[in-house]
């Protein structure tokens, strides 16, 4: 497959430049650095960033802040950010839960970029390998969303690459991991109604235009099962269980609030294939669940808890989290139930007896925990205390052969995200994509070709590079590291090398011709000032409603673009 990059990804700390890895020309970095310091002027750093979520804007911000305008190289730096929606911020706007406005404060980092004339935003521009002449090729989004971004300006990599010295892919993970082998799942041949990927539900309640038409109906839904135990699962559980008056002043749109207010949800179960010691959600999110008014939580069975404690050892975060999970919360009003369930993998989603196109039951394979023998040799972070990611990967679930069924009026599939390949069917440059892992092919953020060789000047950061894990702080660290190695690479060599790939050592000036042309032909490219008008219009809408909301999001691209006249 890709033995080399995969292995390096796992063991970077063991690598040395002198590794026997390659006959290829690997230059020892210290030599290069001296060379560039002594001789020529650095070449222009003209960067295209694809995707405007946190990984994109943290990378842009790190680079522009590290090379201020008034520094010697400052005027030789430009950053152009492309985004297929008219709105920036990515998951900060469409992923972070509406009742976590404080987490969204990080978008001020993005807003700071707007005062730097070296930064330009091109919103409503969709990039793929497909040539700009073909208009109707759809972008895969999800089985649930046939949305194809019909209002966007479509351009190809080939249209823009000559204009840049550097390309950074930060377009995140906008597809769901499928449960396609489970009959009745949303990605199976015969999907049942009310089986929804978490990505779809989260995007729907956050007013993502590709998912705003999702037919969500919570009338008559009493029992909800969420498959997967990460923070997304808890976000969904919280939105479904929280009293509506605690959500009414968030940026949830009025349509969404209306549907949530009709909900009959009584019980939400969050189910994992392993045990309490292997959950992926974090303590803050769990603590928040327990603070929901009128919620009953049963805690965790003793024997499961004892096993979990034995497995996690002395790990600080897990210890605190297990301590919290252990305590049950009684509530006599008993209006809403929240449960964690363990050691179950979905076998089949079964139709309801009343309506065979709706889901009614889940059949589970019961699991037991096995400590993986390979865990001893598998790499662990140098200091597991410093990890932002819950560990426990060495503990595996193994089916016992037993099965169990229980009722589920709605099933949310929350088993992770994957990135979209930005590769088209026809000629032109293709972005190397690791289909198996669902991310851009890269080694430590440096994009590699099919043979595993680094393509000079092309990088990836955030979820598109490393998969859908980690909180915003981890994305920030990742982006900063990437930005630092990018600047290091750039300023330590005077050209892209003799096999420069698709980029230009001396990039063409200005904005890509295709952008200017498409605007002449009626295409709408949303720059920062246009975004500010959309932003203001959303705030004005909220003000008019007089309900104390800060923002009433537009749920359709048409409505966003209509603001611009």
């Amino acid at each position: 497959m890709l033995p080399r990059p995969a292995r390096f990804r796992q063991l970077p700390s063991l690598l040395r430049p002198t590794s026997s890895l390659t006959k290829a020309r690997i230059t020892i970095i210290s030599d290069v650095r001296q060379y560039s310091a002594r001789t020529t002027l650095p070449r222009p750093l003209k960067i295209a960033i694809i995707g405007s979520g946190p990984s994109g804007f943290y990378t842009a911000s790190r680079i522009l802040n590290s090379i201020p305008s008034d520094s010697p190289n400052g005027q030789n730096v430009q950053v152009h950010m492309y985004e297929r929606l008219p709105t920036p911020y990515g998951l900060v706007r469409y992923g972070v839960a509406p009742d976590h406005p404080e987490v969204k404060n990080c978008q001020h980092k993005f807003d700071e970029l707007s005062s730097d004339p070296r930064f330009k935003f091109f919103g409503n521009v969709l990039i793929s390998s497909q040539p700009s002449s073909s208009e109707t090729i759809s972008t895969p989004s999800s089985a649930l969303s046939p949305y194809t971004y019909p209002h966007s300006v479509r351009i190809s990599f080939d249209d823009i690459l000559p204009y840049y010295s550097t390309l950074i892919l930060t377009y995140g993970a906008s597809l769901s991991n499928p449960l396609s082998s489970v009959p009745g799942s949303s990605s199976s041949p015969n999907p049942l109604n009310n089986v929804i990927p978490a990505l779809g539900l989260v995007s729907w309640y956050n007013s993502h235009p590709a998912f705003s038409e999702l037919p969500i109906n919570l009338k008559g839904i009493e029992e909800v099962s969420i498959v997967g135990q990460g923070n997304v699962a808890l976000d969904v559980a919280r939105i479904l269980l929280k009293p509506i008056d605690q959500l009414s002043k968030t940026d949830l749109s009025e349509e969404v609030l209306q549907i949530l207010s009709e909900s009959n949800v009584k019980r939400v179960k969050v189910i994992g294939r392993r045990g309490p010691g292997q959950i992926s959600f974090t303590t803050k999110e769990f603590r928040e669940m327990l603070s929901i008014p009128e919620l009953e939580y049963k805690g965790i069975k003793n024997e499961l808890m004892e096993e979990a404690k034995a497995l996690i050892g002395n790990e600080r975060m897990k210890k605190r989290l297990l301590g919290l999970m252990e305590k049950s919360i009684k509530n006599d009003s008993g209006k809403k139930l929240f449960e964690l369930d363990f050691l179950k993998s979905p076998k089949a989603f079964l139709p309801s007896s009343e309506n065979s196109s709706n889901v009614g039951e889940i059949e589970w394979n019961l699991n037991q925990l096995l400590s993986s023998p390979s865990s001893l040799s598998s790499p662990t972070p140098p200091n597991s205390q410093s990890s932002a990611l819950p560990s426990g990967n060495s503990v595996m679930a193994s089916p016992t052969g037993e099965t169990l069924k229980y009722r589920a009026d709605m099933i949310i599939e929350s088993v992770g995200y994957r990135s979209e390949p930005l590769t088209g069917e026809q000629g032109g440059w293709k972005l190397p994509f690791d289909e198996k892992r669902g991310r851009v092919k890269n080694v430590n953020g440096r994009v590699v070709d099919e043979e595993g060789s680094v393509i000079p000047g092309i990088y990836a950061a955030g979820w598109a590079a490393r998969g859908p894990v980690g909180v915003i702080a981890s994305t920030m660290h990742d982006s900063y590291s990437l930005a630092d190695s990018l600047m290091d690479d750039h300023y330590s060599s005077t050209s892209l090398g003799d096999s420069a790939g698709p980029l230009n050592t001396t990039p063409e000036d200005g904005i890509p011709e295709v952008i200017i042309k498409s605007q002449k032909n009626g295409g709408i490219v949303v720059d920062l000032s246009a975004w500010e008008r959309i932003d203001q219009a959303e705030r004005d809408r909220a003000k008019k409603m007089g309900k104390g909301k800060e923002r009433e999001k537009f749920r359709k691209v048409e409505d966003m673009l209509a603001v611009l006249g």
Partner: protein
Amino acid sequence: MSRSTMNFLRPLKNSRQIHSKISPSLASSSSSKNPIRIIKPILGSSIKRNLHTTTPRLHGEITRPEPGTGIKLTFKDSKGNEIKTIEGNEGDDLLSLAHEYDVDLEGACEGSVACSTCHVVIDPKHYDMLPEPDDEENDMLDLAFGLEDTSRLGCQVKLTKELDGLTATLPSATRNMYVDGAKARTH
């Protein structure tokens, strides 16, 4: 293989190392320029839930004391080298002070205890004088990089007179995200 003109074997490094090696101009610029300056009102401040006892407030509202009259405080980098010694007033928090004095400490959530980016390591003597971190702060510290026994969130450490002489060390930011990043999988 023939395209490997770059050295991709090196682990990612932190910026301070890199800039000092690349060129003097870059080295000086990265530390002298304020990398984060929060000037806008907190989005959604009117709809904040009161989940934690500490009310988030605007940062960057620090009034510098007359030199020689304030509470002294030293920021160090992850290697223990002094970044700068500054003076603050009673009640000022370390995140706001860092921003006021251009110390490179992030504050992604702007002091609302919703992230761990302002994590600092306090010297043991002064750590013991601080009120215990609350559950919400501990929840965030759980996610911090390079956690130590005397770690705190900078936004939650408020100066008092007895803290004069406190040292806050920035944690090591070097961390390879790819070591444990390979986790996405289905059930």
